[in-house]
């Protein structure tokens, strides 16, 4: 019988090294195995975070390498929290976040429920529906810019066809009132399929036996929906909301392509504003404080949400 590889390795290990390895505890060996990962984590995640926090208390500007860097205490934080423009940006982000999530959950769940009904060709429909989320946000932003063009855009012509309004009489991305809805519409178009897929997974995970038992108890479809379908899909739905919430909180590429943050600052979301502070105004210290505030906000909200998610799962 031939030797197994581990025995070959053990035999070929020099006796001195073998002795020192034998003397290691299980805990030490575990540390040796996980230390590269910990080192990588520290280098890529923790160190930049600590460095960002440190910079947030300074007036450092990366484009002024020769300038003196002063410790400014909490001045950057105070300026951010009292700046009405930044609060307007936060409001724009909240508006975008709330409406995209509400629409995506409603439409995504409805689509998932429809697709979950057994009908001919539902695989093809599923494929067609998920196509938008496979596209690059830059591509989506660009072609929706064309769709929204008042003179040549298909969107305006469709609205014109339905409502009778002159297609050149409104500009979805040039009007202060319409632009926030224009970006919500595009994000909803693109990411509803993602919510739909998660909901579909939830719907398909519900055993048929539960519905059969409910039918034996003469429960109506409506009752089955509210007492079986919704509670059992809820953890999946909450997961989708978490993913979309985090993604949309840091939304950048799609909006930059569509509106550039305009008109005015109407669609300037926090990620766009942060990028401008960091890489256009080059106020590195200020931008670091901004990033820390956003990090704490997202981390805090996500932690509360995950706790709620776990409670729903246990329930």
């Amino acid at each position, binding site marked *: 019988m031939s030797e197994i590889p581990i025995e070959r390795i053990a035999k070929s290990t020099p006796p001195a090294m073998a002795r020192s390895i034998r003397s290691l505890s299980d805990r030490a060996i575990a540390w040796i195995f996980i230390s590269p990962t910990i080192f990588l984590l520290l280098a890529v995640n923790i160190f930049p975070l600590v460095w960002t926090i440190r910079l947030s208390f300074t*007036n450092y500007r*990366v*484009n*002024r*390498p*020769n300038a003196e860097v002063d410790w400014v205490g909490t001045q950057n934080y105070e300026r951010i929290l009292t700046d009405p*423009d930044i609060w307007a940006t936060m409001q724009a982000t909240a508006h975008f976040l709330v409406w995209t999530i509400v629409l995506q959950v409603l439409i995504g769940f409805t689509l998932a429920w429809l697709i979950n009904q057994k009908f001919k060709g539902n695989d093809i429909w599923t494929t067609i529906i998920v196509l938008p989320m496979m596209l690059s946000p830059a591509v989506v932003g660009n072609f929706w810019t064309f769709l*929204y*063009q*008042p*003179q040549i*855009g298909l969107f305006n012509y469709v609205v014109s066809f339905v409502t009778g309004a002159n297609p*050149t*009489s*409104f*500009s979805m*991305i*040039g*009007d*202060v009132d319409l632009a926030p809805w224009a970006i919500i519409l595009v994000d909803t178009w693109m990411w509803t399929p993602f919510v739909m897929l998660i909901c579909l997974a939830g719907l398909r995970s519900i055993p048929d036996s539960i519905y059969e038992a409910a039918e034996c108890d003469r429960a109506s479809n409506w009752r089955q929906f509210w007492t079986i379908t919704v509670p059992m899909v809820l953890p999946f739905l909450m997961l989708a909301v978490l993913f979309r919430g985090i993604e949309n909180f840091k939304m950048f590429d799609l909006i*930059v392509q569509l*509106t*550039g*943050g*305009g*008109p*005015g*600052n*109407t669609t300037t979301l926090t990620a766009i504003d942060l990028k*401008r502070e960091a*890489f*256009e*105004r*080059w*106020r590195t210290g200020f931008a670091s404080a901004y990033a820390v505030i956003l990090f704490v906000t997202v981390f805090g909200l996500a932690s509360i949400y995950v706790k709620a998610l776990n409670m729903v799962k246990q329930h």
Partner: protein
Amino acid sequence: MKIWEELNMNRTFAVSAVLSATIMTAAGTAHADDLTLCWAAWDPANALVELSSDFEEETGHTMNFEFVPWPNFADRMLNELNSGGQLCDLMIGDSQWIGGAAEAGHYVQLNDFFDTHGIDMGDFIPATVTGYAEWPKNTPNYWALPAFGDVVGWTYRRDWFRRPELQAEFQETYGRELGVPETLAELRDIAEFFQGREIDGTTVYGAAIYTERGSEGITMGVTNVLYNYGFQYGNPDSPYEIEGFANSEGAVAGLEFYRDLYECCTPPGSSDWYMSENIDAYRSGQVAMQMNFAFIWPGVHADENVGGDRSGYFPNPAGPEGHYAQLGGQGISVVSYSDSRDAALEYIAWFAQPEVQEQWWKLGGYSALRAVVESPDFAGSQPYAQTFLDSMAIVRDFWAEPAYADLLLAMQDRVHNYVVAGNGTAQQALDGLVDDWVEIFEDEGLR
């Protein structure tokens, strides 16, 4: 005058001979280098690639090019400079970067090099020297060689302007001939006249103007009106004293004019337009006039749909308080982090030669060398050459301070917010701008 011209020509040829000899000597002794020149991705960059092949032949160096589209140009290149990157040996950077790049040590100061090689800044159009090369402004400290003269001007559909029925209608409506506008008020009338008009079965619009939000677009547009209505960046005797200058009564009227022009006479959906969108609108026959930098004129002239005699060019019209136009264009600098500094300097010396500059103009690059633009046959060499000269004579530029990006973004925010988004009043927009600028200058320790 003739003697001066002769002297000037003699001096030009003498300098040219010295530079040629220097380059040839350098080519004979130095090793061949790989040089990378960074610039924006636009038509003149293609002309520069063509022009630079002569440099490669003469010196044996290899030229590589890194061209970035305008909307990302500043982001990409300033990141490169700020990180001490070695991608670019030569940078044709925007005029407003000069202060920051000089003070942060990104560019090599060229005074000694110019002295050694007989390159005299007096040989270049003065506005381009101040705009593209000097820091601090109006001091003989040079960080770039003027490379591409540019200025905002206007292109118009001469074929439409000449139509007898339109001329008659315009005459009847406005009591004057439909022609090149002398003033901004006249320009507005013409734009209004064409707005929504059916021409050859297509609805056309008055004018394409700069409204872009993300980079510098609306600032480069609105300043053409603000300057002419009395806007000043600051007190001429105390430059960082801006209250009452940047938000003067005239400046407010100018900003109101720009918003009115945007509201009355631009194509629907033009809320975020800059150079390329304006070109597209003009070439596709959507607008009667377009505001744009002069660099587009060779392309317009050669265009199948609107080129040749169908288009004309005119400088930015005067306003009630003056006659100015926004300076564009760039200087070429040597990046201090380059490992091939000598070869990069060699390129600058080669590029400064009058015959190279003449060729540069022929290929579509706007030379800033006086020997080229002041030569007797220059004005007639292209249909837009005289307009270029007239425009370059009236230029003004945005701040070029190290904090220019802060200053620019504040103006982009405030102006776009008023002109396009329609928030608040012009007075509030400019008062807000003054507050922003004061805060920036205070942060910079300049006030």
